């Protein structure tokens, strides 16, 4: 017997299965077609329907049927063209006739595996719950004996150190006539940079569109040059525009080397022409969003500029393997890479590894603690974002940053090396918009600096993404905001000047808010690294785990 499914649509998904349902208002729509044109996934289409109208006039029912062709906007039920909830259609609609609505009962993940293809996406961990960072409160307010400071008038110095600080016992100093003098050539003094404690984390040229990357770069340059705020940003894997490499602005950038070594041919060639050293070198071993997974830049993103910077042919998939293939162990990988990177710049540039948040972070840390050339450790927690990863990696893999940083810091305290090896925390900072508060909390747990990624994309370039899987199309190259795309039609929507302005807004605001946190706590001169008595949390188990106070 022939199955009836063709007739009753039984094998079709219903709208209820989809994560976002489009609310389209017939009465408001003027059928301009803008929404269907802009939709990055073609989740809506204009279509024609036949409207059957039955009317009856007079005292006795005399039904008359008429048929009319109408034009409507319809949501498609194909799982590969699911509405991402980005809201681009709403943005372009002149009459507020269309809007996506979150469908919390969706069964999206049950179906997003057509052809045995596991769901891949960009974005962050889809967990909208309140993070540990947002649960931390600053409860040690200076009162009376120790008056709070005036955040508006007092002089504040919000800076941190990136690089290995020699323990005071090892400093080549000698007292002569009541003064300390440095005994030159006695010992290697590692390079240390004074930077702003919030930095922009690694996002590559390639993953980001030209105007996005340029906007960020312009923003931090302005902050350095005009505002005197030494904010730095990391290149991500894939090198940097050659002109920038040879410019005096290089000092505001951290160059990243990752397992694909993309861009490094160009960097090495530019070395003799560099007029400034980069701020630091970051060796990427892992990433919070997809721990243990490599990177992939899809072929359609590898246009002329990207191919040139990375030193590869155009339009080929650029895969970075999960690990550095030439190395066999942490000891070897870390030691050799740190050595060779340090050597390339004559030991004038701090070199540090970045790993994903993991239970084993302390093993890496202890290894670095013994390596006199390791300049820091950057840990990217589970809430870190990415341009492309398997959904399962993003949602289920990795370690929360709060306990990871705390454990590492306390481990350093046990060894007396808490000032020697700075910890950089990343992953989920500013998840709910509380950039300064999250940064300050991590600093008080023991981080020397924090790194942000998704937050700056949202705040500076209006990225639609959120923890409800909104948009998250970064991997497809069809970012509706023009942030993570190499398609000129899309990225020309993004104005780099505006991005730069927003970067400046973000950092200036964060600076004010950091003062508003530190001033009542009586701190103004040094960053309150490890000032854990300043923090409390309303959860006993968390308080115990983080070794901070419980307050309710």
């Amino acid at each position, binding site marked *: 017997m022939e199955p009836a499914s063709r007739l009753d649509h039984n094998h079709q998904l219903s709208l209820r299965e989809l994560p976002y349902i489009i609310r389209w208002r017939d009465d408001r729509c003027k059928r301009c077609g803008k929404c269907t044109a802009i939709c990055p996934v073609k989740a809506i289409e204009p279509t024609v329907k036949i409207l059957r109208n039955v009317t009856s006039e007079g005292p006795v029912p005399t039904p008359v049927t008429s048929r009319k062709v109408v034009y409507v906007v319809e949501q498609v039920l194909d799982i590969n063209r699911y509405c991402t909830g980005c809201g681009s259609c709403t943005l372009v609609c002149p009459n507020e006739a269309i809007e996506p609505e979150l469908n919390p009962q969706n069964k999206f993940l049950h179906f997003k595996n057509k052809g045995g293809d596991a769901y891949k996406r960009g974005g962050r961990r889809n967990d909208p719950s309140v993070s540990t960072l947002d649960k931390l409160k600053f409860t040690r307010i200076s009162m009376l004996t120790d008056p709070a400071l005036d955040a508006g008038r007092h002089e504040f110095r919000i800076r941190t150190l990136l690089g290995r600080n020699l323990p005071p016992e090892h400093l080549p100093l000698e*007292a002569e006539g009541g*003064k300390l003098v440095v005994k030159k050539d006695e010992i290697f003094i590692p390079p240390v940079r004074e930077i702003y404690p919030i930095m922009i984390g690694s996002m590559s040229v390639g993953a980001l569109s030209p105007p996005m990357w340029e906007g960020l770069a312009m923003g931090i340059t302005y902050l350095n040059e005009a505002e005197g705020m030494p904010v730095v940003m990391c290149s991500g894997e894939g090198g940097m525009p050659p002109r920038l490499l040879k410019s005096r602005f290089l000092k505001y950038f951290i160059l990243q080397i990752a397992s694909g070594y993309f861009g490094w041919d160009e960097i090495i060639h530019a070395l003799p022409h560099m007029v400034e050293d980069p701020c630091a070198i970051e060796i990427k071993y892992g990433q919070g969003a997809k721990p243990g997974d490599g990177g992939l830049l899809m072929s359609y993103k590898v246009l002329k500029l990207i191919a040139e910077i990375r030193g590869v042919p155009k339009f080929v998939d650029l895969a970075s393997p999960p690990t550095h293939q030439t190395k066999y162990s942490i000891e070897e990988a870390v030691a050799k890479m740190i050595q060779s990177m340090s050597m390339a710049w004559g030991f004038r540039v701090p070199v540090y590894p970045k790993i994903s948040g993991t239970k084993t972070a302390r093993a890496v840390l202890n290894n670095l603690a013994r390596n006199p050339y390791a300049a820091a450790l950057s840990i990217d927690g589970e809430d870190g974002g990415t341009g492309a990863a398997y959904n399962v990696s993003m949602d289920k893999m990795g370690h929360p940053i709060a306990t990871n940083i705390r454990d590492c810091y306390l481990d350093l305290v046990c060894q007396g090396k808490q000032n020697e090896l700075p910890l950089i925390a990343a992953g989920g900072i500013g998840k709910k918009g509380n950039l300064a508060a999250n940064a300050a909390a991590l600093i008080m747990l023991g981080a020397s600096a924090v790194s942000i990624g998704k937050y700056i994309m949202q705040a500076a370039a209006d990225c639609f993404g959120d923890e409800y899987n909104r948009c998250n199309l970064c991997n497809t190259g069809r970012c509706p905001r023009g942030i993570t795309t190499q398609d000129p039609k899309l990225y020309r929507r993004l104005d780099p000047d505006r991005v730069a302005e927003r970067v400046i807004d973000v950092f200036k605001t964060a600076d004010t808010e950091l003062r508003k946190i530190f001033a009542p706590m009586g701190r103004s*001169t*040094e960053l*309150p690294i490890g000032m854990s008595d300043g923090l409390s949390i309303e959860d006993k188990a968390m308080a115990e785990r983080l070794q901070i106070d419980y307050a309710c």
Partner: protein
Amino acid sequence: MCRLAAITSSEYFSPMENVLALETMKEGHDGSGMGIILKDLGGEFEEFKEFPVLSGICSESGLETVDKYMADHGFQIKHVWSPSITEVRGIHKRDYYFAKVYQYPESYLDKTIPEKEDLLMRTRLALRKMGESDESIIVFSFYPDILSIKEVGDPLQLSEFFGLDNSSLKAKIIFAQGRQNTNYAINLYACHPFFIQGYASMTNGENTAFVPIREYLMSRGFPGYIGYNSDSEVFTHILHYLNRHLGYPLTYFKDVITPLKASEIGMRDDREALNLIKKSLRMLCIDGPNCVIGFNPDGTCFMVQDSKKLRPGAVGGLKGKYALMSEECGIDRVVPKRDRSKDIFPMKYDMVIIPPGAEEVRVWNQLQG
């Protein structure tokens, strides 16, 4: 806010002078305790300059433990001082207050001073540990020519309690603190001035960076960096760490606890060294509104404060006698006939230094170095 009264003099004087200075500054302390440290002892201690003095409080059983421990470890008693106690209402009398002078154990007679100092410190810590749980032994200092007295109560009443006005107890440097109980429980180990191996300091103002500083000091691997019943104890240990352990001249205490800005460091001719220590000793920046008065083993007294201190301490006096106080009225009580216009209120870059002998007072400016 705790009140601080330090006096350094070329002549021996009685700790009553400090107590009376505290009394004049009374609004500032709430009678929750007083601590006194005497250095360069006179009176009956004058002939024992070379010998270590153990100062503390014991219960009857604690006393036996102390005597046995000291005897077992080869310390021989040379002299014992105990205040003649007058019971005063409101002051809880403990069994036995003492300062005992010892001869070093035989095996230590020819040892170097640092070795002797380490022995004294280890002995003090061992005694402290033995009596900590039941408070049967409380020891404040064990060092040559140093005597400490601490108790809970109002300073003036305590001076009556200890009979200080009739006592022959005298010294050339005396530090006293009248305590205002802040957020840490009343515990005699929380009472300033704090002492370690020849260095002492007392502080007022709350120490905001207490936890990271404590963690940093405790992680230095030096057994004496423990305790911290008060957030101010870290200042004494920072002083000891910098001067004794790292060998930095005294003025670098100021450079470490209240570091200069990068632009200011450039003005100093030791800028290279300053740049290094600012980074390496970043954890010891106090970053809080504290006034610190201290002395080092040679008897140099000093006062420094963080720029956030709203009301600075004051230093004044005459050749041969200077007072370092948290309030000017305290100086008036101790050296009334001085030229008040010459009083010094150290500002954010200043470190007031009075060399041993109290012949002169110097103001070291951090910007000029």
